[in-house]
């Protein structure tokens, strides 16, 4: 990809990231952190790509470890966030 395209995507994503969470009450700080934490578990996609590219046993071993860790991050992250938020249900009228 062209460097300028990458930089554009990066800068725009920074602004979107700033914007979406700029006004959030302290009540939601913990679930929001946990949810964002789950989102970066999408590194799983990267781990799968490198596992596909792997040619040596060392590469494959490290890639498999990365997949395990990334899956824990992603799946565990979303489940735990949902459990936190479950307790908020019906609270706001």
């Amino acid at each position, binding site marked *: 990809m062209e*460097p300028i395209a990458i930089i554009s995507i990066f800068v725009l994503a920074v602004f979107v990231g700033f914007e979406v969470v700029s006004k959030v009450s302290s009540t939601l700080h913990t679930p929001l952190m946990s*949810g964002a934490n789950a*989102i970066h578990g999408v590194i799983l*996609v990267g781990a799968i790509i490198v596992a596909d590219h792997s040619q040596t046993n060392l590469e494959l071993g490290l890639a498999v470890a990365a997949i395990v860790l990334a899956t824990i991050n992603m*799946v565990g992250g979303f489940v735990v966030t949902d459990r936190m938020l479950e307790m908020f249900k019906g609270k706001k009228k």
Partner: protein
Amino acid sequence: MSHTLYSLIGLAAGICFILALKGLSTPKTARRGNMIGAIGATIATLVVFLYVSPNQDGTSHSLPLHNLGWILGAIAVGMAVGVPAARKVQMTQMPQLVALFNGVGGGAAALVAIVEYLHLGSSATTAEVIATVFTVVVGCVSFSGSIITFLKLQELMTTRPVIFPGGRFVIAGTLAAVLGTSVWVVSALGTQPLMILAGLSLLFGVLFVLPVGGADVPIVISLLNAFTGLTVAASGYVLDSTLLIIAGTLVGASGTILTRLMAEAMGRSLFGTLFGAFTAKPQEASSGEENRPVRSGSPDDVAILLNYARRVVIVPGFGLAVAQAQHTVRELADLLLSKGIDVAYGIHPVAGRMPGHMNVLLAEANVPYEQLLEMDEVNPTFGQTDVAIVIGANDVVNPAAQTSPGCPIYGMPILEVSNAANIIFLKRSMRPGFAGIENELLFDPKTMLLFGDAKASLTKVVSALKAL
């Protein structure tokens, strides 16, 4: 699947993540937001299996992916570990689990960068090597730093700042070594320098978090979370994946803002949090403090005091979470309300182990939302409050935050319960709070202490109150 379709689906997943963060910022839409995020992540993961990303030399092979069995097996293992951990965790241990999940994410990003580096070998461009070095350094720091925050929160190690003589020079030296090795990797290219770099970064992560004081740990988790986001973005650059760039950057940016918001809620500068331990003098040992007289009461004494109050403010803290006393405290509040007594909860933004911890817990017990008052709302009312009941909280009501410069929580806004006519502390023991500071309020003549597990104590108070 064509590259265009693959990229478009990736974009859709990116949009899901934006909507997820947006949804998570409002209570009404939070749960749906999380669900949208999970859908985005699922789409992103499924679509990788349908498209073979080309190798560095532009060649690609046909489906299915190489090593497919290993990949699916690894995902199954990850789910077998992650899902039960997330389902079974107690609400009290939520913060350390989030820290742990963040750490493994950082570790995964570092591993991905290492594998891609091994694979690319000398064909990597300088920009790719720099991105790799960044990912390895920050990913490793996030990994080992998160493990330390986990150990602190789980109380497997001391929750106090760990400061050793010459510590700041060791940290500065390690940082210099990390930077030096980074330059070495970029210029020399080799597996060995990269491994040394990974090791040094892991060490730096440990040293970086050790001096952080107990109550500041949540801020550090949030910061490390933002770090991990940025490593994912850098991996996205190396792997030519727009989705990873978008998702990683979103988390990096929103995590930074969130870290700042949390630091503000605690009345601290981010810089002070991270580097406060360097400048703070070691606390003087509180010798003899334990021998000072305190006034402890029985559940009956507490019930009588409450029975004749007109306004009661309940201040919950981590002890409430530990004792799982949220339902009992609600029972007490309902009983007082039925006697015509005005009841409110004073919620400190960082009560418990994480911002919002108390809200989550009390929401579980169906405490009406309007009874939960935030710090700014409740503080002016303590003057008209007859009884303030502090349940398992300590640091968030400790006047030392206002009166003794140099103590680790100095400058943190507190709930000013000392303005209430009577103060009741429900505590397990005289042990100081998470930040490890003695609380003068315990020795105040208008304070009454009720020792014991919060739930057991509250149950006794409730039955005593019913008998009156």
